[in-house]
């Protein structure tokens, strides 16, 4: 939205991109708060996962604080590839190839949706819930908020796709697509941090 644009033609980032980067900075702080909670809980706990905190009734319900690595690894691959495809989309539109831009954008949306599907399926299979010790609480809060951001990114890209199909976005004017790609890379990086801390680092 440049309706009330700058009085001076300023160099560098546009208002929109600077605004988006500031917004992403605030999002980093939001996830920072959640990560801090996770690390404090983990540091406080004598063992991780904190199986010893499970009450007898939780154990008898079959609650186990265990995570499988296979499904989230697939999801991680999908998301990393989608980060590549959205960047290809940006590069294509910069060269004026709108058809390729639209296809790569479409591919990114499909990959993002596939990530969400895998995540929801994983949720349905996990042997613990959000109320099962701080392990379950932090796991679902962190991955859940990340998933919400993936959903937001998919919507963001879908809006750009509709605009592109309507004839917008060319080699000169494609700030919306570039903004969506920045946001999507951010979502990807947060996931890599989450995947590493939640699933890999024992």
């Amino acid at each position, binding site marked *: 939205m440049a309706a009330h644009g700058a009085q001076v033609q300023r160099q560098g980032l546009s208002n929109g991109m600077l605004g988006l980067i500031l917004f992403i900075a*605030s999002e980093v702080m*939001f996830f920072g708060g959640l990560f801090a909670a996770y690390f404090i809980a983990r540091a406080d706990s004598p063992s991780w996962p904190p199986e010893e905190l499970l009450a007898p009734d939780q154990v008898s319900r079959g609650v186990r604080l265990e995570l499988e690595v296979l499904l989230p690894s697939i999801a991680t691959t999908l998301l990393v590839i989608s980060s590549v495809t959205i960047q290809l989309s940006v590069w294509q539109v910069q060269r004026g190839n709108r058809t390729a831009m639209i296809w790569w954008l479409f591919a990114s949306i499909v990959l993002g949706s596939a990530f969400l599907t895998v995540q929801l399926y994983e949720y349905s299979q996990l042997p613990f819930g959000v109320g099962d010790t701080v392990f379950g609480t932090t796991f679902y809060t962190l991955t859940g908020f990340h998933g919400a951001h993936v959903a937001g990114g998919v919507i963001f890209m879908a809006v750009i796709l509709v605009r592109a199909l309507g004839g917008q976005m060319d080699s000169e004017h494609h700030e919306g697509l570039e903004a969506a790609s920045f946001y999507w890379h951010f979502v990807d990086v947060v996931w890599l941090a989450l995947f590493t801390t939640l699933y890999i680092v024992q």
Partner: protein
Amino acid sequence: MATIAVPHVRGQERPAILEWLTTVDHKKLGIMYLYTALFFFAVGGILALLVRTQLAVADSSFMSNHTYNQVFTMHASAMLFLFIIPVWAAFGNYFVPLQIGAPDMAFPRVNALSFWLFPTAGILMFAGFLVDGGSASAGWTAYSPLARTLGPGMDLWIISVIMLGVSSTIGAANFIVTIFRMRAPGMTMFRVPVFCWNILATSVLQLLATPVLAAALVMLYIDRNFGGSFFDPNGGGNAVLWQNVFWFYSHPAVYIMILPGMGIVSEVIPVFARKPLFGYKAFVFATLGIAGLGFSVWAHHMFTTGAVLLPFFSFMTFMIGVPTGVKIFNWLATLWGGSITFEPPMLFALGFVSMFLIGGINGTYSAAVPVDFAIHDTYFVVAHIHYVLFGGAVFAVFAGIYYWFPKIWGRRLNDKLGTIHFILTFIGFNLAFFPMHLLGLDGMPRRIATYADINHWELLNFVSTVGAFLIGVAMIPFLIAVVAAFMRPKDQPDNPWDANTLEWATSSPPPPHNFDSLPEIHSERPLFDLRHGITTSHAVQPGAAEGRA
């Protein structure tokens, strides 16, 4: 869209109410911010008088303990979240674009979203009084485990504060982009008015600290509603975690609540002392220093938890007194040798400097760990926060209102009524809050509904209550002055105070597009240069503002 240079004719055909409800104009949004914030100031003030009525005498039975908990919680929540923080957004919205010579904020529609979240969240928070168990009653700090156990009013409070957080986060991004990218030709960063610098520093704090509060509130909400264990030791959580994430926001929030006030005072004092602000750059760096150090002092609220590194946070807290002290010297040196006159804006600005100084000193006092252990959670802390946020922020709000009233409405508030308003407020304020130092040193705990009459506690509390009601009475001359001003025609010139910043270069009130002409900018005082023939003024080209075709 970018090629349209014609003013928005379509908007003028719409009914006024629709125009206000759908406006994206920064001045209209600023006025709506101001009205809404002052409304909540009145509500919070009435709640404060209820608190003081309860505490006027020992062993009072004016209200039940549970009612008292709701009243003091909502008093603080309204004053902090619904009055002080948004009232700076009001002044910022109206005056940042005017002071930097811009036609509007960078993102006008985002600006409208920021505003509309604010009254919505206010209604949601106060809707707590209608639900089972009443409103939030865990204090504005909402510590666990208490906050995990209260009724649904607490959930409304959480959602409301998250909404306000979103409002100030996106508003902060808007201010930062506006100040970095919308400045008029010639206005380098070191010619930006100090008020805008303070809004910029505030915005950085809001942008980076508010999301952490949102994270904390989300965790509390999950604990309360989905069986989460963030703050529950039985499930491996940690109740002190809440204090860490909460204060990581809420201490910077204290600077969010005071920096714009410092900005206003720094606009007012040079104008009424008829001197440039002493040490402009030192002031700017002090502002940035406060913002930077503001992130490293949060745990001084938590000395008694035994869970924080005392020497570090104590040292950093003493450190943050340094840039604040620099500012006090900036103001005093500006006054020194000036041709001072005492119109109401200046009275309130001087009230700010003197009272905020006390608030700063008794704050530094509390930074010493042994002292803090003795006065933690006593009325001494209540005295401190009110010297900072009433003696500081509220005095600055009124300085700003008296100073900018002619610009916003083209009318001037009566000087005599303003002077009476100031004197009554000043006396009432000190009567209300000075005795709290003594009560605190004597060990009276805060947030209790009743007390026994030992060591003259009843006398001191009664004096405090008299002072609180005097502050209430002091608002009467202010309201009369406002009504009287609106009954008179708009007669104010562009620059009634001979001020030096750009908002005074346009008509009072300004046209929708803000400026017909702008002076050349070669210093941080463009209108001073213009008055003295150093520079000239040039018409703003129609459409130049929208020249990003």
